[in-house]
């Protein structure tokens, strides 16, 4: 059967060749390996050997002709073989044998490799292009701030980021001033670090936004509250309550003590909340991943705003203390926080938190749970409102809105609702705690 012979690669680098001379004429027969023609390549004159024993039926490309590797150059076969079909197939637009079909999903490895090397080439080219950029263009990449970040360990960087600490404010104790974990920790724990503004900030351009360094305390707030908010799924329950009897009780507290000093509203709320917690221990809990810790004491924290940020002094065991006792202890704690700062034992470990923005006239708000507790009570301002009374008349009543934030991992909606319902009852009818 006649077959086409093609220009082949006669050296590893050859891509095309020119036929110097055919050593056989049409009609000649030859044995496999006989010299069939000579080909000039980019480098040398090469022998083209007969691929098999046959006869030369047709020269497609005569001497002097140039062919790429894979181009047809002749037809060989047995004398008398029909070559018309082959000739026709050549003229009929001789696409090289079509590639086998492969689904796009099944991208051949060679293709992948070509793609990868193409990308590499592009990367190298673009890299080279960068290297030849004029100096002016290079300046684009110069950092704006002339002060660089001090050397720091990856862990220190990660920690600082979490705590919101600017590493430039931290003094490094490692080799060449490297900031390491312990430096960030020390910085975060120091109470007044926020005042030490690094020089760099002064030299900021006027138009640049002011960068206020993060104090250690701010960093702790940031970290603890982010952690709480982003790990504990919060939900909120709201209830409006009458504050009439609460205010009356407050008034009575002064009379009882024969003093002008009334018990603080917060102390009253802490006491009533503690009573409610005593009856609803399922609220006085901490979610610890693989178990839920139920606290035995009612250690209630109160969110207090100081100049340098929030603090949450804790009065321990409120259920077993009088309102007066709670009030006295809380006042002492707040005073200490303002002057000397609290020890961790004085602001950590609240099992329940109360936050009150009533003095700012805020009607109601939602708060972020203060771990380890699972719930926080946000108290709004007491305002007089027109409230329909039982008898159908309209009365003017002092009302306030309670918003209970709960961690759904440990406290389900109905559980939180029962607690808030009872707490509301104690606030509206404080005497009911005695019953």
């Amino acid at each position, binding site marked *: 059967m006649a077959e086409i012979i093609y220009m082949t690669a006669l050296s590893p680098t050859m891509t095309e060749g020119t036929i110097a001379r055919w050593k056989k004429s049409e009609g000649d027969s030859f044995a496999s390996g006989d010299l069939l023609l000579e080909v000039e390549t980019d480098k040398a004159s090469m022998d083209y050997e007969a691929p098999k024993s046959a006869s030369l039926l047709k020269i497609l490309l005569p001497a002097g002709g140039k062919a790429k590797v894979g181009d047809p150059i002749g037809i060989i076969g047995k004398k008398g073989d029909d070559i018309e079909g082959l000739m026709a197939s050549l003229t009929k637009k001789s696409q090289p044998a079509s590639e086998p079909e492969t689904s796009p999903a099944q991208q051949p490895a060679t293709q992948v490799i070509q793609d990868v090397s193409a990308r590499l080439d592009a990367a190298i080219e673009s890299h080279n292009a960068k290297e030849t950029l004029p100096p002016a263009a290079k300046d684009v990449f110069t950092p704006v701030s002339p002060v660089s970040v001090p050397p720091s*360990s*990856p*862990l*220190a*960087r*990660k920690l600082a980021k979490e705590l919101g600490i600017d590493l430039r404010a931290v003094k490094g*104790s*490692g*080799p060449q001033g490297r900031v*390491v*974990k*312990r430096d960030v920790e020390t910085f975060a724990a120091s109470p007044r670090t926020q005042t030490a503004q690094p020089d760099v900030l002064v030299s900021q351009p006027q138009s640049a936004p002011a960068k206020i360094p993060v104090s250690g305390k701010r960093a702790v707030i940031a970290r603890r509250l982010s952690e709480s908010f982003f790990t504990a799924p919060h939900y909120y329950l709201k209830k409006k309550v009458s504050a009439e009897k609460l205010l009356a009780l407050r008034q009575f507290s002064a009379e009882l003590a024969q003093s002008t000093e009334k018990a603080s509203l917060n102390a009253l709320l802490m006491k009533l909340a503690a009573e409610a917690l005593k009856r609803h221990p399922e609220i006085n809990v901490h979610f610890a991943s693989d178990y839920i810790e139920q606290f035995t004491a009612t250690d209630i924290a109160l969110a207090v705003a100081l100049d340098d940020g929030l603090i949450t002094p804790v009065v321990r065991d409120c259920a077993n203390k009088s309102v007066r006792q709670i009030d006295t202890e809380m006042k002492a704690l707040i005073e200490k926080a303002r002057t000397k700062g609290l020890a961790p034992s004085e602001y950590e470990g609240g099992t329940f938190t109360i936050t009150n923005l009533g003095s700012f006239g805020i009607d109601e708000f939602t708060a972020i749970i203060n771990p380890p507790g699972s719930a926080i009570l946000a108290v709004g301002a007491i305002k007089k409102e027109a409230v329909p009374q039982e008898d159908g008349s309209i009365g003017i009543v002092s009302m306030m809105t309670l918003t209970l934030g709960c961690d759904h991992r440990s406290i389900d909606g109905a559980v939180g609702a029962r607690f808030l319902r009872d707490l509301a009852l104690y606030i509206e009818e404080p005497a009911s705690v005695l019953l």
Partner: protein
Amino acid sequence: MSELTYREALNRAMDEEMARDGNVFIIGEEVGEYDGAYKVSKGLLAKYGPERVRDTPIAELGFTGLGVGAAIAGLRPVVEWMTHNFALLALDQVVNNAAKMRQMSGGQLKVPVVFRGPNGPAEYLAAQHSQSFAAYWAHVPGLKVVAPATPADAYGLLKSAIRDDNPVVVLEAEMMYSWKGEVPDHEYLVPIGKANIVREGSDLTLITFSKPLRVTLEAAEALAQKGIQAEVIDLRSIRPLDEETLYASVRKTGRCIVIDEAWPMASVGSHVAWLISKNCFDTLDAQVELVSGEDVPMPYNHGLELLAQPSAPKIIDAAKKVLYREDL
């Protein structure tokens, strides 16, 4: 539990495996009548005969390649190299045949052969006989490489190696052969590819394998005296490498020292140090340190040769750097 030497543990492993599977045989120089150059195959010739405990001429290339051929034809050879130093003569057979025949045959062949013998520095042996080739084997895909550091692991890992359907290189050490340790009396396997947390700690991670485990534990003990709790991990298996155990530890401690008695360039230790640097980057509070053998041929002089190897003081020096503490 019995107290066995490392040598006895290896011997027990081979003895049990030969009794269990008639296709297991030992081949190497002096393994038979001499009872093994280091007496690891002691008594096995008497028990199993010369067909199964085969003394060879001094021809590492020949008998190593023979082991590969016997493995592809259905046997489970245990090829003993008198030392890994001599195995260089057989490197071609391990790298080009044992490791590749399965892949080159498109998965048709399996090569269940064990290559074992002492590796690493010993004593007074000078440059040609005191060197670690762990990285040579570990570099090659298609091989498994294990390095037992205790008699218990020597027993359990060698048994796993013999039962593995792939070529496994076992790194032993001349100095370890006489070390003693508790070995359970019942039969067990130590899986290939699982590292061992030898000592738990929270302050820094010390990663090592083979003989240097001993100096590493000494260093950990000295650090503990100063209140530093080092976690010590014995790789046991170098290829495959139990990366997750390493990362979990370093993510906990934030500090890592790798101890490898081989030369530092392109070593198992340098590779592990790179992996830690790459995969624990955000949790590192210090650079990863490598305590390696010094980058010199081993000298004969005893003082010099000790100086060339990892030691507890060298590890403690590295600990000072990663802990940022000069006072240790």
